[in-house]
């Protein structure tokens, strides 16, 4: 059995893309930036105590699953989200829901995922994709990051759904059960904006939000003296990888969020949002600038081309710009 999934749109962020594609199946036209904004996926956190590939973790996204559940809640859609202890039970449940004609989103680890390009297949467990059909012991997958149709065997799917490590998926799957007849994006968009403002400005923890960006800049300055050029370059590489490579749409979701603000400005008829979307794009350009210069530092690990102070200054500038944007955004009355 195979559901009709012709409308699939490619996207940068896997979870927003999966959610947008699932909504598209129910004839709700929504773009990826809109899902990302409503789901409040925008985030920043620099967490030195958490190591990813032997380097401190820098995250630009919220916890996995947040975008889907927030989007559904804000749009008034009922959904089911579950994890299963027993792999067999998880697969049976997936078959049962598919038979009812409902596309199912699943969280997987990419290490064993056969159709993923090899250079991305690290121990990373926060990838999301949609299963939309089963045929002869194999499943049809709509992966919004990969072009083309993908098929995965039963064994492989079970293996990736039970990947181990940080943020292990444990067979997590989610699907929508009840869709309201009319869906309006206006109120949900405002709710998403408010949530993001709160997250970036008001969380009283120095590793998260705008404070987190400043903390990251301070740490960046210390790396060469504390760890030596080689390790500093490795840490820098990992943060740029998180910033540009793993499904962020460029500059750590800043461009996607700008696109969302632009779309919301048209939706809510608000001129100020349009200005802020341009500001957001400029902040994104600044982040991109950091990645360019940082990438050139990665060419030679022992002799950095640019000083780390210079790079940290760019980050501080980004923090200032973003703080201005979110302070303004918070004050807007809709």
């Amino acid at each position, binding site marked *: 059995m195979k559901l009709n999934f012709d409308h699939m749109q490619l996207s*940068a962020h896997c979870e927003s893309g999966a959610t947008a594609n699932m909504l598209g199946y129910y004839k709700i036209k929504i773009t990826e930036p809109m899902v990302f904004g409503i789901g409040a996926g925008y985030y920043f956190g620099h967490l030195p105590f958490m190591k990813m590939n032997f380097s401190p973790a820098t995250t630009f996204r919220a916890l996995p699953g947040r975008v889907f559940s927030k989007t559904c809640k804000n749009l008034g859609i009922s959904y089911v989200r579950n994890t299963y202890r027993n792999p067999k039970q998880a697969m049976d449940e997936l078959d049962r829901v598919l038979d009812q004609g409902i596309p199912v989103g699943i969280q997987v680890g990419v290490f064993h995922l056969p159709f993923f390009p090899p250079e991305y297949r690290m121990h990373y467990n926060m990838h999301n994709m949609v299963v939309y059909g089963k045929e002869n012991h194999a499943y049809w997958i709509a992966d919004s990051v990969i072009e083309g149709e993908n098929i995965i065997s039963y064994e492989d799917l079970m293996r990736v759904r039970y990947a*181990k490590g940080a943020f292990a998926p444990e067979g997590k799957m989610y699907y929508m059960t009840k869709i309201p007849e009319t869906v309006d994006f206006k109120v949900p968009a405002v709710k998403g904006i408010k949530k993001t403002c709160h997250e970036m400005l008001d969380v009283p923890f120095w590793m998260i939000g705008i404070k987190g960006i400043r903390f990251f800049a301070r740490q960046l300055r210390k790396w060469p003296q504390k760890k030596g050029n080689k390790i500093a370059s490795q840490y820098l590489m990992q943060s*740029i990888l998180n910033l540009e490579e793993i499904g962020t749409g460029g500059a750590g979701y800043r461009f996607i969020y700008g696109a969302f603000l632009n779309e919301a400005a048209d939706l809510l008829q608000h001129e100020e949002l349009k200005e802020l979307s341009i500001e957001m794009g400029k902040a994104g350009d600044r982040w991109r600038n950091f990645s360019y210069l940082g*990438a050139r530092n990665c060419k030679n690990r022992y002799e950095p081309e640019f000083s780390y102070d210079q790079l940290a200054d760019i980050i501080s500038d980004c923090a200032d710009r973003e703080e201005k944007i979110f302070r303004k955004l918070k004050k807007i009355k809709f």
Partner: protein
Amino acid sequence: MAEDNKDKTNKSRIVDAENIDVDYNFRITHYKMDENGNYTHQLASEWGGRMPVVNQSWEIFKERTSIAKKKVIAGELSPIGYYMEKCISDINTLALYTGIAKWRVKRHMKVKVFKKLKDKTLKHYADFFGISIAELKDVEHLKQ
């Protein structure tokens, strides 16, 4: 292009840090803003600095693998240590995937302990590494 990718990756289920085949043409969606403040998105394989960053991330794994290989040949480390680095894992992930406690995995890194291991235990490791038990035990073929 997607077709080619499938063929390439289906050959081995496990990523091999030593013979990694980076696809520089893999395209992902990129968003950008033009001068008028309108946003567009397109598929692109490059944002300006992809090559040095991706190359370096794999260089680190390659370096770790080669160090582990030298140690195994010198008899300071058991082959599990080498294959662990080859599958870009660390002790924590290896312990989780094999179901063997972390302190035992650490112990199995010693050559003396590794030689005494039963086939039943070795099978857990061999399954994760995607090789046979005989291959896991054989140190000689690493020297070539």
